């Protein structure tokens, strides 16, 4: 199948498919590794241990596929066109970023051509620009109350610096203008030097 199974990077269904094929390929690889180890007259337990890196990778690919699939399926339930559009951009970004980070797996399985890695990088840049105007609205949608978020940097009103200063002033070290350690240690030290 290598060379024929080329992914359409702008089509989410196609991205789900390549994640599925990557998972299948890595499960197959791990299963073959166990068989090879067994062929060397290793016990099943040792064959398993000697294939553990491949096995973890296979599980990781399976989970990654399930996440991409569930995200894509969720889009099918969203009727608001503006929200569908922005979530679709996020889903593509999630899927393409994963392909880029694991491009070796996809290329090894014949699911991705070298030239497509560059295309994916370019597409990711486009998606970043598309998301930029909606970035704050996308995090606002999580709807965290300020008290619950409990973060000076993440305040809804964006008044970071004045509150950062106010927060610092509450530090117990600021309870007195002169900390007792000055009188206990530094001042006596001075007299000894």
């Amino acid at each position, binding site marked *: 199948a290598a060379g024929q199974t080329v992914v359409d990077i702008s089509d989410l269904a196609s991205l789900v498919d390549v994640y599925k094929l990557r998972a299948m390929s890595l499960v197959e690889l791990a299963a073959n590794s166990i068989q090879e180890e067994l062929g060397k007259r290793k016990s099943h337990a040792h064959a398993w241990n000697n294939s553990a890196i491949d096995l973890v990778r296979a599980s990781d690919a399976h989970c990654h596929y399930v996440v991409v699939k569930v995200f894509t399926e969720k889009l099918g339930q969203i009727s608001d066109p503006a929200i569908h559009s922005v979530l679709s951009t996020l889903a593509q970004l999630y899927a393409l970023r994963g392909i880029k980070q694991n491009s070796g797996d996809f290329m090894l399985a014949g699911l991705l051509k070298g030239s497509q890695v560059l295309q994916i990088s370019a597409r990711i840049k486009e998606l970043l620009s598309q998301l930029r105007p909606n970035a704050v609205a996308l995090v606002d949608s999580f709807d965290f109350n300020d008290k619950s978020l409990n973060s000076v940097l993440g305040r809804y009103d*964006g008044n970071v610096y004045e509150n950062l200063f106010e927060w610092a002033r509450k530090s117990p070290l600021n309870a007195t203008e002169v900390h007792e350690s000055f009188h206990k240690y530094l001042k006596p030290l001075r007299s000894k030097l």
Partner: protein
Amino acid sequence: MNPDIIRERQNATFDVETLTNILDLGPEKTKRRREIESLVLSDPDFNEKDPNFLARSERYDQAVRKSAAMILKLREYGISDPEEILFYKSCVHRNRPEPLDLHLGMFLPTLLGQATPEQMDRFFMPAWNLKIIGTYAQTEMGHGTHLRGLETTATYDPATQEFVMNSPTVSSIKWWPGGLGKTSNHAVVLAQLFTQGICHGLHAFIVPIRDLDTHEPLPGITVGDIGPKFGFSEVDNGFLKLNHVRIPRENMLMKYAKVDLDGTYVKPPSDKLMYGTMVFIRSLIVGESARALAKSCTIAIRYSVVRHQSEIQPGEPEPQILDFQTQQDKLFPLLAMAYAFTFMGQYIRETYQRITGDISMGDFSEMPELHALSAGLKAFTTWAVSSAIEVCRMACGGHGYSRSSALPDIYVDITPNCTYEGENTVMMLQTARYLVKSYQQAKAGQRLSGTVSYLGEARQQRLQPQPM
């Protein structure tokens, strides 16, 4: 309001409230969530001193005070839906873990899942009313995820119809369970069951560890706090040493496996039933990870539109740091991940509820899929989220290091997910065991169902060459 952040909100191309409704699974749920949030946040009983400025013992003390108030308020407002209880709790404790987490999240669910009707009569209402405060003591100092390696023993004595619970070695001392150190007076203890001279593997026992009135440790019990940790400052993770402690036969959780009066052992219908509570927690962890990442992204992205730094065009004013492509490249993939994991959290919770419903009706067919999926997704999401929060912290530059950003606290309270309820590599290997087994079944011509069904599909059928 900061003018930059006002402008950002004006630029959005979609309605924020509609998306919030989607994330909450409906406008009614959004409304109810906000009602609960408002109940807590407007309640002076839940005011707190900033924990960043408190010592650990003070943080524990403050958390216990709030937990006690929380239990009363839950009754007062008649909040009984488990999801609403969890949300109320997360508002009270601002998403920090708290001393009653194990009681509410593991002890009660274990009773619900594994106790007989008689045991429910004996334990549930006292536990519901906090007369019994329980935890779930599984991990030992020398043993973690590999449950068959646990050393604690429960030996049945037919003469007295009691189990003798014992920690035979130092490495068998129970270690890490939340709430065990100072809060709980009972523990569900996982121990190797011995009866009629035969070991029948791991089973769960309800062990009283402190006097119900005085709260003093009971004879044969050594119990305490394991000390400061990486985060989790509000929780008294504890140790427990059992020195030939005798408990009645009826304290073994016997909904599935049983020990008769004479010591005859009756096997459960499935070995995996023992781990139902862990599977429940693993399925919650996926959503919890998503929430931690969503919070981190909220902090880092809002800050990135307020913060101005350096230059893109020489001579022009300092731009918002979110206008730098590198900042977008750090944060937007994580925002996408937060959404992906949020939807995944909803999916795994629904799957858990559906399959446990089937299990309660006697259908165990999808249990292996649930175990494999919850283990793998718990590992996959917690690994990814731990790294992602660190990226968010760094994306906030110097201020990300301040505890005022909340990012250090989010990080230290979420990374333990990588090791508790199963160390992640071991979780991944459990998933792999199911995948390889399914692959071999597919090769042998068997039909597969669930998320692994693709392993039975012919490779070339699905992906056709696409135009570039």
